[in-house]
């Protein structure tokens, strides 16, 4: 137990901070994922074949390639790409981007591909009559989306989004390869320092279980809230 003490003697405070980092990366990645989904879901549902194709390439490639490979692409390619853009504007110094930014961006793009599929499925399973009714009542496109499509879509999407959240949360463990100090990286450091990998990796497993357990409870509450009236 002394291994987990807070302060200089144990790894308790380090692991606590690492857990907060995991939560922060997961939430950021999930939000980045939502913004990707907000772009690609309309493309998927568009009437134009070309736009469908772009969105399909995005979701197929990301869901068919290992997360780790995507992370390596961002880790090794990220600063290169930004330096290239910066050099266009005449800035030629070396730019190193923060591991948090690269990590949450890489995981966000992955999470976005899953979210896109979830939102597409949710919108498609809304009854066609709802759209027609909105049109008949003279709703503008904007109002139709906010007042009719969005609330129903959220209700249908929440169970699947909770899966996406779980995947995202677990994927953040892979960012440890880039050196960002989240649960996995901190356990790696602690295990190397104390030569007690069994304890620290098992403890990391417990932390992840705790995170998934708590988030499931919270999502269930959300689910109840959004299925009022059903």
């Amino acid at each position, binding site marked *: 137990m002394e291994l987990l003490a807070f302060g200089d003697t144990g790894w308790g405070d380090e692991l606590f901070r690492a857990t907060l980092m995991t939560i922060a990366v997961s939430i950021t990645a999930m939000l980045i994922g939502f913004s990707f989904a907000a772009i690609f879901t309309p493309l998927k549902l568009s009437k134009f074949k070309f736009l469908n194709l772009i969105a399909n390439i995005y979701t*197929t*490639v990301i*869901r*068919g*390639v*290992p*997360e*780790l*490979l995507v992370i*390596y*692409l961002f880790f*090794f*390619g990220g600063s*290169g790409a930004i330096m290239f853009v910066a050099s266009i504007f005449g800035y030629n110094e070396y730019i190193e981007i923060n591991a948090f930014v690269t990590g949450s961006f890489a995981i966000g793009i992955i999470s976005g591909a899953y979210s896109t599929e979830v939102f597409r499925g949710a919108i498609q399973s809304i009854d066609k009559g709802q759209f027609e009714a909105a049109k008949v009542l003279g709703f503008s496109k904007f109002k139709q989306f906010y007042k009719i499509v969005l609330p129903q879509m959220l209700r249908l999407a929440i169970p699947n989004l909770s899966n996406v959240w*779980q995947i995202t949360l*677990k*994927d953040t*463990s*892979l960012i*440890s*390869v880039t050196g960002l100090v989240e649960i*996995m990286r901190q*356990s*790696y450091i602690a*295990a190397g320092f104390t*030569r*007690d*990998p*069994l*304890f620290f*990796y*098992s403890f*990391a*497993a417990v932390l*992840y*279980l705790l995170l*998934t*357990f708590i988030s499931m409870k919270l999502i269930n509450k959300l689910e109840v809230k959004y299925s009022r009236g059903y």
Partner: protein
Amino acid sequence: MDFELMINSFPKLLNAAVVTLKLLSVSLIVGLFIGLLFAILRLNKNIFINKFAYGYSYVFRGTPLLVQIFIIYFGLGQIESLRSSFLWVILKEPYWCAIIAFALNTGAYTSEILRSAFQTIKPGIIEAGKSLGISNKIIFYKVQIPIAIRQSLPAYGNEIILMLKGTSLASTVTLMDLTGVAKYIISTTFKPIEVFIVAGGIYLFMTFIIHNVIKFLEKKYSY
């Protein structure tokens, strides 16, 4: 774009893909048996057996695969009695550690897939078997298992693809699988995009094949 690098790295990556496929197939076969075993345990009426099987799948589905590999590869070597036992021959090899972790992980997901497949079998089918005087054992092997396999094909196909992606984590325990070699080439040439296109293309090709084989099987066994 460095096309020369792409052409040069293609055979290396293709060789590494063989390692990936080996890891995938061995862990899927072992995982299928583990999954079937735990699915049957889940359907057991004894509450302890039931809870044990649920706990197994909960833990393995609720933690990242990376943690599981690290516990098995770095953690288990710490136990003195394991180091001196015959199991050490297996556990000191990263290859087998990765396979054990993958098999246990896919086993947990497979048990959930099979359990729900068993539960969707209509009771009438089993009753029909019983009223024809067929023994419970034969009903299980000849009726329930084939139906459950058909029911679980689509979900299992997804699981195979998830596992294919999961094998990339073998590179974290020094195995040179497709991702491992890709990372090595990236870190020596600093050309991430080119290598990503080739390695990602090979992964996509494999997912494409798996997807279509499962689709074919679904059609073949549909009723």
